[in-house]
């Protein structure tokens, strides 16, 4: 069985895995990282989105062996020292979640979106999150949250640059 080494939320794991094991099942069933849920089997819904070497990836469409050597951040690793990431705060403030099942993927996809465009328009947000489905909110509050998160993240960065 192939042996892989992955870092998940700052912890290194060396694991023997079947070649067919999906990354999301490695995370959930083997490593107990159940913060990352599964919503479909055709990579349409994006609930399982994680950051793989800093970019968003749907962990249901990646084999665990393909993640060998990668650094993975899940929703569980987003807070630092108990302080929520600005995007987590923004989703809470703007009521951008109801059942919350799509939320981990939505937050991580939104963070990746800001990677490319730190001040996205409504259209950019809507198109950028097209691969993440939500059944509860109708998306308006998610768009508001991403804008708010973007504002707070750029303010944090400015603060870091000037301090």
């Amino acid at each position: 069985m192939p042996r892989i080494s992955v870092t998940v939320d700052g912890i290194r794991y060396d694991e023997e895995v079947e070649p067919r094991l999906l990354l999301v099942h490695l995370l959930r069933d083997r490593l107990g990282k159940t913060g990352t849920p599964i919503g479909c089997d055709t990579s349409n819904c994006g609930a399982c989105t994680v950051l793989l070497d800093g970019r968003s990836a749907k962990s249901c469409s990646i084999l665990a062996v393909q993640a060998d050597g990668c650094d993975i951040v899940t929703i569980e690793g987003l807070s630092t020292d108990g302080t929520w990431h600005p995007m987590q705060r923004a989703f809470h403030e703007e009521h951008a979640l109801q059942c919350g099942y799509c939320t981990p993927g939505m937050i991580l996809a939104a963070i990746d979106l800001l990677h490319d465009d730190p001040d996205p328009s409504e259209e950019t947000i809507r198109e950028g999150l097209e691969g993440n489905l939500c059944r509860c909110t109708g998306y308006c509050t998610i768009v508001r949250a991403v804008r708010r998160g973007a504002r707070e993240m750029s303010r944090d960065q400015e603060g870091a640059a000037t301090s």
Partner: protein
Amino acid sequence: MTEQLDAGVAAWQIKESDVLDGREVGRARRRKEDARLVTGRTQWTDNIQLPGMLHVAFLRSPMAHARITRVDTSVARTQPGVVAVFSGADFAAEQGSLPCVWPVSEDIVIPDHPPMAVTEVRYVGEAVACVVATDRYKAADALDAIEVDYEPLDAVTDMTSALDEGGPKVHEAGNKAFTWTFAQGDIEAAFRDAAVRVERTFVQQRLIPSAMEPRAVVAQTDGDAFTLHSSTQIPHILRVMLALTTGIPEHKLRVVAPDVGGGFGSKLQVTAEEVLCLLITRRLGRPVKWTESRSEGNLTVHHGRDQLQRISVAADADGRIRGVKVDLLADMGAYLMLVTPGVPLLGAFMYSGVYKMDAYDFTCTGVFTTKVPTDAYRGAGRPEATFAIERMVDELAAELGMDPIELRRRNWIRHGEFPYTTVCGLTYDSGNYEAATDRALALFGYDRLRAEQADRRAREDPVQLGIGVSTYTEMCGLAPSRVLGSLSYGAGGWEHASVRVLPTGKVEVVTGTSPHGQGHETAWSQIVADALGVPFEDVAVLHGDTSSSYKGMDTYGSRSLVVGGVAVVQACEKVKEKARQVAAHLMEASPDDIEFSRGEFRVRGTGTSRTIQEIALATFAAHDLPDGFEPRLDADATFDPDNFSFPHGTHLCAVEVDTETGATRIRSYVAVDDVGNVVNPLIVEGQVHGGIAQGIAQALFEEAVHDADGNLLTTTMADYLLPSAADLPAYTTDRTETPATTNPLGVKGVGEAGTIASTPAVVNAVVDALRPYGVRDVPMPCTPERVWRALGQARTPQRTDGGLS
């Protein structure tokens, strides 16, 4: 778009800091639930891992209708990691029949519904065997080694032809499940000499509810008692029904709904997999888990809608509606599940909408087909009824050459006429259709958009503007028990709450409602904070576990606040009365002289007071209580309302339709809803937004499609088009507040309102855009292809030699 989104925010400014005289109710509290959801510390059923746990995978029928002639599990049993393999025959003696609790007529046909098929399969996806293995991959692998021989039978996929004599039968007794009729007033007279009559046929396409969390079940036993975790909306109903189905005594069965990722009616069910997982754990003595894949769920989670509506309206020349006649076929699918036959009945009383009329006539026939059963999906019966009447009022307006708003004004129940008993016999307690409509028209810029529409029509612009109106109401807040009983529903509609005051003055609320995204923990905390004068943060809400919350009727039908929230209020009142006794005793005053305000009991006219926290501690110590006083402040309440709840509102939709490509774009959407008093405006807006999105989805995007052999073609999210952020518009929302008079909070249900309202608003807009071309209807979903075909048919003169290609 940007401008519109901001307009939406401005229309309903939501600030948590808004001071409401110190009250919690009405405040836009951010949700308590969010902390675990935004950090991934969730408890979805599939997250549960237990020592020695086994995984179940189901083999499902690839045929819509077939006799099972042989099932061979012998090879599968020898596969690595496989602990057991079962077929339907293995469970036949103990699996019982999945329940239907709504036998709507005396002569209804309720076929036997084995959780695992034994001799015959009646839809693609029905379970025929299962593997129990040490992990989910091994369980899925071994399914390939099970051999099943089928003798194909004819599929029955079309409701209308299913009723033809001599055709293939889904069940021995035939394809008609029931016919249910309801009539009020003299319908013949209403239609006989009416100046205008309009008749239409609408197809309510089959929909897949698609909660984001797929279903999952974990069952375990200690050899005596059983615990079932399930992604369900109805842990309490499930416990009773599973006890009755499996024979496990109710007191030996605990059902838990942990975090549940959405339901929309799809988890208001007693499923085959829940029954089978219990039976498997009973046999093997080990914990088992089953989690469905999305494509498995699309095949097997009950579907929604799927009705064929023939509706006629008769009116006077001035537009006054005289009567409405409805003839409905409702596709039950292959079996009657929990409330399958009752869904069209929930719509039966809503075809008069917000309008006054003399007569009403309703007939519904439930039809069996070889498809997955239908059952409740957000709105359940009421979206269908509201769609039909709101579409018809727009059609009638077109027929009369009248503005659709003006026609509605002539017919709706005026503000001064409430309470009003409708032609269907419902008494609407309160409402103000004028106020909601006037506000919506102003936000929408109705006159300006009509002017633009006229201009585009005059210019023959290839992109036409359409304006759609929906002035909806609905009956929700399911309850009242006596009414449900009169409709042959198998249970009541009350709700239960317990309030427990802890020694330190913190409060636990146990609710019989079972939230799965609605935010009850937050809203109930606000209600209790006001009622007992304790801080919002000092309230915890317990739910969804029959061991802590033994009594409840769960969450569906927009009932949680209007029934369950009121039960919480009533329990708090009892707590307060007990605390008043203790306070009076401690302060040596008469209870009649004790005033209560914001958590403080004060002797009237003095400076002497005790806080509720002090009373809680004194009651815990019990050293000095009134003679005979039971040392507890805790109290229960069970509330059963006298009437349904009737939210209403006006939704306006403007669409741009490209007449060359058929593409529709929602240009603006305004919703002004009246859900009575509001506990948390943030949560209400969320419910309205999400509801509108699901209604738009029916209007423009979603449809479960079967081929002639009964195969579902939309088994994945790649085929079944759930709208993404890029597909939906921003919504401009506002509210009017006409308090309900039937409950002490003055609240009305909100969970389904948006979905009920929005579908006709969108389709009315699409048809309005195309009306100059002679289009009178576009079947849902109004895809570019369907719009384009509707235009083509309207533009091409009718041929008599076989019709249009």
